[in-house]
């Protein structure tokens, strides 16, 4: 690729050696310095932090596959992506008894001989001996490897130009990245920054900052990183010409306005609104984790009222199935499990969540009940959250708190600076500092938890060698007296109206639940380098959530009441490729528990799980420990992480064989207490039986053609009951059944 960039590289590459002094000291034009000035190429001392450290990133020396990984490479370890200048200095100049550098004869330094491939190097020849970079390293060694000057300006920010651009499908673009230094000066570091795209089917970027659209429409975020600072360029490749209006799109609330302006910009025409049957099935699955009953479907389809969709939303939200389903979803990411061997606590925590959801407890209070849980499990079942993580409590709780409640994947920062973000080890241990005084008694399963006066953990912050001290993410260190429980202060901080994480991750999580994909995807990975597909919409949802005192039902009502949620899943020409902007509903497979219960519901049967009441469905199970081949085959989460991504949507052979060819399902289809048996016993006419089966499976009546074909099939068979079973098998094995669409 380099030949293509020959011209563009000249300026910045020359700059690495020469621009600094004139700019920093004299403020002169960088262009006046040039490599051609030859014999006296460097008019000032090379600085380790300014000149040398960036080269370690540029040549990939400190990447995760090489010397940046936790174990280093061949005894030589650098900080990952160069976040720790002092560490890297020690590694180069001091460790290995200084044999990596040889000031008396710089060319013989191991650093240069390895980097140029003069001696065998696992990473090959990385640096050309004729290059400016080589001269910088050479000069630094010659100077006696001075450490970074404490007064030399440091990079405090980077910026990218342009920040976003609408690109044609085959367009290319050169980015320009500038570093901003602590003295206010700016440098072009385009050639030295590292680049990565989050969606390479939309746009790729090479290591010189050259962006190419790849033919697929959508929006890609290109991360530009230099010396630990990050800027993001957004490449927008529209689906078509921008639109001035969206004919046929019915706006139901303010969400639709914000979505519509995005679609217009991107040239996306939304699919039409879905029909009533699809809406009822969709909203019942999403709110209650079950299919509509035949009666519900009939009533809804036959209801002439205009406002019936909003009425059914309210009815479902007030039904016991809504808290049952959301208790299961929360229980999964809150790791409510019996892994730690406390069944009774898992039941209690499950019921506690269900009760919180049923009463629509404000979200901040719900979170407080978990994060600041203390007491005996009977009174504070949420201590099971801590107990499940007890083997590695401080770290698991820290990373789960960050991920589940703040949408920040902070766990990388336990060992190294977050590779894409500003989060450092200091931030990680600062958050951990809120959990260091959590004590637990030595009796009970689980034991009582309490806020101790002094640290109860033996873990230390490797940066200080001391017990981690509480520091608000992005903020100040906090001091607490022995009688305080720092965890309450953490929740107070979360619940402040301007907290940028707390409300956004919740509304994004809910959006992902209902729309099949977060505005930010994954739903718990909010960061500048992973931007929302519609930032205005995410902000508005978060603001609205705060303005309504963290009322979760209010957010849900707003989302499912929107026209966006009620679009058809059928794509049109314009939105077929859309995977980010919700211009159609994204169909998705029923998750394990819902699929299981839907199968029972359609067959008219009930599964009895051992150790729980006979009426408990799969969504009612409080933990993962109830044996079920069906649930395991459909990838029921093991509840071992706080991540929504534990569920996989990939189909497996075993799943299909189970549905299409198993005694387990066949026994449900043909059950003597099942739907078909009842239809036959009631001597229902074939047409009615067919209609009921369609309503039970799809919440819709069959079309005329379907009715005719199905009826003809049943009548062609000698054994009516078997024929209806065949029809039921067919519905159960159809995509329309397996998907929420």
């Amino acid at each position: 690729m380099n030949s293509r960039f020959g011209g563009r590289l000249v300026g910045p590459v020359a700059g690495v050696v020469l621009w600094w002094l004139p700019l920093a000291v004299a403020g002169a034009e960088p262009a006046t310095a040039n490599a051609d000035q030859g014999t006296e190429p460097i008019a000032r001392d090379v600085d380790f932090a300014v000149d040398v450290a960036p080269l370690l990133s540029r040549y990939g020396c400190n990447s995760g596959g090489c010397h940046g990984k936790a174990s280093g490479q061949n005894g030589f370890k650098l900080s990952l992506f160069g976040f720790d200048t002092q560490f890297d200095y020690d590694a180069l100049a001091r460790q290995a008894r200084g044999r990596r550098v040889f000031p008396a004869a710089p060319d013989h330094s191991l650093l240069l001989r390895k980097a140029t491939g003069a001696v065998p190097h696992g990473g090959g020849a990385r640096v050309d001996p004729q290059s400016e970079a080589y001269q910088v390293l050479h000069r630094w060694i010659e100077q006696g490897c001075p450490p970074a000057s404490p007064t030399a300006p440091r990079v405090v920010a980077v910026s990218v130009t342009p920040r976003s651009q609408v690109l044609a499908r085959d367009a290319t673009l050169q980015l320009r990245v500038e570093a901003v230094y602590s003295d206010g000066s700016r440098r072009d570091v385009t050639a030295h920054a590292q680049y990565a795209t989050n969606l390479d089917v939309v746009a790729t970027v090479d290591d010189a900052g050259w962006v190419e659209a790849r033919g697929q429409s959508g929006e890609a975020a290109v991360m530009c990183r230099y010396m630990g600072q990050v800027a993001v360029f957004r490449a927008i490749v529209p689906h078509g010409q921008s639109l001035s209006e969206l004919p046929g799109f019915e706006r139901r609330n303010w969400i639709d306005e914000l979505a519509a302006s995005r679609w217009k910009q991107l040239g996306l025409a939304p699919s039409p609104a879905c029909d009533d049957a699809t809406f009822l099935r969709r909203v019942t699955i999403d709110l209650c984790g079950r299919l509509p009953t035949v009666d519900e479907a009939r009533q809804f389809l036959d209801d002439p009222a205009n406002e019936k969709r909003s009425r059914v939303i309210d009815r479902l939200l007030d039904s016991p199935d809504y808290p049952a389903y959301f208790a299961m979803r929360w229980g999964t990411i809150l790791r409510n499990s019996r892994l730690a061997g406390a069944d009774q606590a898992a039941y209690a925590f499950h019921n506690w969540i269900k009760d919180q959801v049923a009463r629509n407890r404000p979200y901040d209070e719900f979170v407080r009940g978990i994060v600041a849980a203390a007491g005996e499990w009977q009174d504070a079942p949420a201590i099971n959250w801590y107990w499940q993580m007890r083997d590695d409590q401080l770290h698991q709780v820290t990373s789960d708190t960050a991920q589940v409640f703040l949408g920040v994947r902070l766990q990388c920062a336990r060992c190294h600076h977050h590779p894409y973000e500003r989060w450092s080890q200091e931030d990680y241990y600062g958050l951990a500092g809120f959990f260091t005084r959590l004590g637990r008694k030595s009796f009970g399963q689980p034991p009582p938890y309490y806020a101790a006066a002094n640290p109860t953990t033996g873990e230390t912050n490797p940066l200080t060698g001391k017990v981690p001290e509480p520091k608000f993410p992005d903020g100040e260190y906090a001091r607490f007296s022995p009688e305080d429980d720092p965890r309450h202060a953490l929740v107070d901080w979360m619940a402040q109206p301007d907290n940028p994480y707390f409300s956004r991750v919740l509304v994004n999580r809910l959006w992902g639940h209902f729309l099949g994909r977060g505005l930010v995807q994954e739903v718990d990975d909010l960061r500048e380098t992973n931007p929302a597909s519609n930032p205005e919409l995410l902000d508005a949802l978060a603001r609205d959530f705060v303005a309504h005192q963290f009322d979760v039902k209010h957010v849900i009502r707003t989302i499912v009441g929107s026209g966006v949620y009620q679009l058809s899943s059928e794509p049109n020409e314009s939105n077929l490729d859309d995977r980010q902007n919700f211009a159609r509903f994204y169909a998705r497979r029923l998750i394990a528990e819902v699929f299981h219960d839907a199968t029972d519901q359609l067959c008219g049967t009930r599964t009895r799980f051992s150790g729980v009441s006979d009426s408990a469905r799969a969504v009612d199970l409080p933990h993962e420990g109830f044996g079920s081949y069906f649930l395991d085959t459909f990838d029921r989460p093991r509840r071992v992480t706080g991540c929504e991504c534990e569920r996989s949507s990939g189909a497996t052979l075993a799943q299909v064989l189970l549905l299409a060819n198993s005694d387990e399902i066949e026994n449900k289809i043909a059950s003597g207490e099942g739907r078909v048996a009842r239809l036959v016993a009631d001597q229902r006419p074939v047409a009615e039986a067919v209609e009921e089966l369609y309503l039970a499976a799809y919440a819709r009546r069959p079309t005329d053609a379907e009715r005719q074909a199905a009826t003809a099939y049943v009548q062609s068979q000698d054994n009516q009951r078997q024929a209806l079973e065949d029809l039921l098998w067919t519905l159960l094995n159809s995509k329309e059944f397996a998907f929420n669409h």
Partner: protein
Amino acid sequence: MLEICCTGGSVGKSFSRRTLLRVGALGVGGLALPELLRGEARAAAEGTPRPRKSVILVWLAGGPSHIDMYDLKPTAPAEFRGEFQPIATNVPGIQISEHLPLQAAIMDKLAIVRSACHTNAGHGMGSQWMLTGYQPTIEVNDNIYPSLGSVVSRMLGARDAALPAYVNLPRSLDLGKAAYLGASYNPFSPENDPNSDGFQVRNLKLPSRVDLARLQRRRDLLGTLDAIRRDIDLRGDLDGLDTFYRDALRMVTNDRAIQAFDIKQEPDALRDRYGRNDLGQSCLLARRLVEAGVTFVAIQAGGGWDTHGDNFKQLKDNLLPKYDRAVATLVQDLCDRGRQDDVLVMSFGEFGRTPRINPGAGRDHWPGAMSVLYAGGGLRMGQVVGSTNDKGEYPTSRPFSPGCVLSTMYHALGIDHRHVFHDQAHRPLPILNEGRPIEELI
């Protein structure tokens, strides 16, 4: 992003073949068998299928005792060397345990690496390391990284679309799953012992209430209803499922999977030779499966290798006779059928066992040195690679990491072990992040 995580399931040539079949919304649903077969015939006419290798891994869960099997130390002090004597093999200069006589007789078809090692002595983490090549940082009972079989499944697919690419026998390995590659690359397992009389693959046989004619009627009905269904064409979102239904129903309708799994078709004499036990019959079944087109079979070689107590009695009375017979017969059988270069057989566990014998006449966990057995696959056989010190404690030459052990296998299959996947956090993760193929073997 979703798109990155989920794109590019490489199902190899079979995909284009399958896309030729223009089927109804539920795949095979609307398709008569003759049509299926025509599609296959067409695919066959397009070109000869690429010859591809397969792997059979015999997974010795619990940690086999290297010093009692492949790396005996007869001159070590009594508290190390144990009860077993080395015996000569058919390769001059190579000795292995007296309780592996059948393998000793075919040593020219085997290669032993004595100097594999790592640093984690826990079952879970050691297993994860050996089965994925990645050193795990936390102990969990599920895959953080994809197992070798899942990786192979993702990279190569099955050689026959009517068969799964990756099978576990007789049941699923604890850490044999696909992790971030997605559930489609999880192993398919009968969850059933092929040595039992009633052995069958779960849900591969027709349910008792349904005969083939009825299944055919159902599929026709499904095809009819699909064809007239309201236009619920969800295109991109559901393509994968179509493929899957097609594969699964092929397994049911097209006999080949049932045939492949039908171990009873093997002659009794051969079944006896493999050993009438779960390991022996799993090895035989594995051979049938790779012949039929499965790409990777991992066999859970019983439990019991975790010999903390009564190590010698356990090994000589129970574990080694079955293991020796099963593996030696498998290797010989593959040779007899001329398949030795097409099928790589491997055998190892999560670690070796402590050379110093404990007070209970047992040996404990020891990742400092372990032996790995390779056979066939086009690798160079009849040799021992690497050595350990005089007590079998650690390598004295050619130490090999788990990444080396696995990359040798990937090399044999023609898979570039530097190929990069992305996990859910979009981290780029190569198939292996360390290790290179063992030069003596390739």
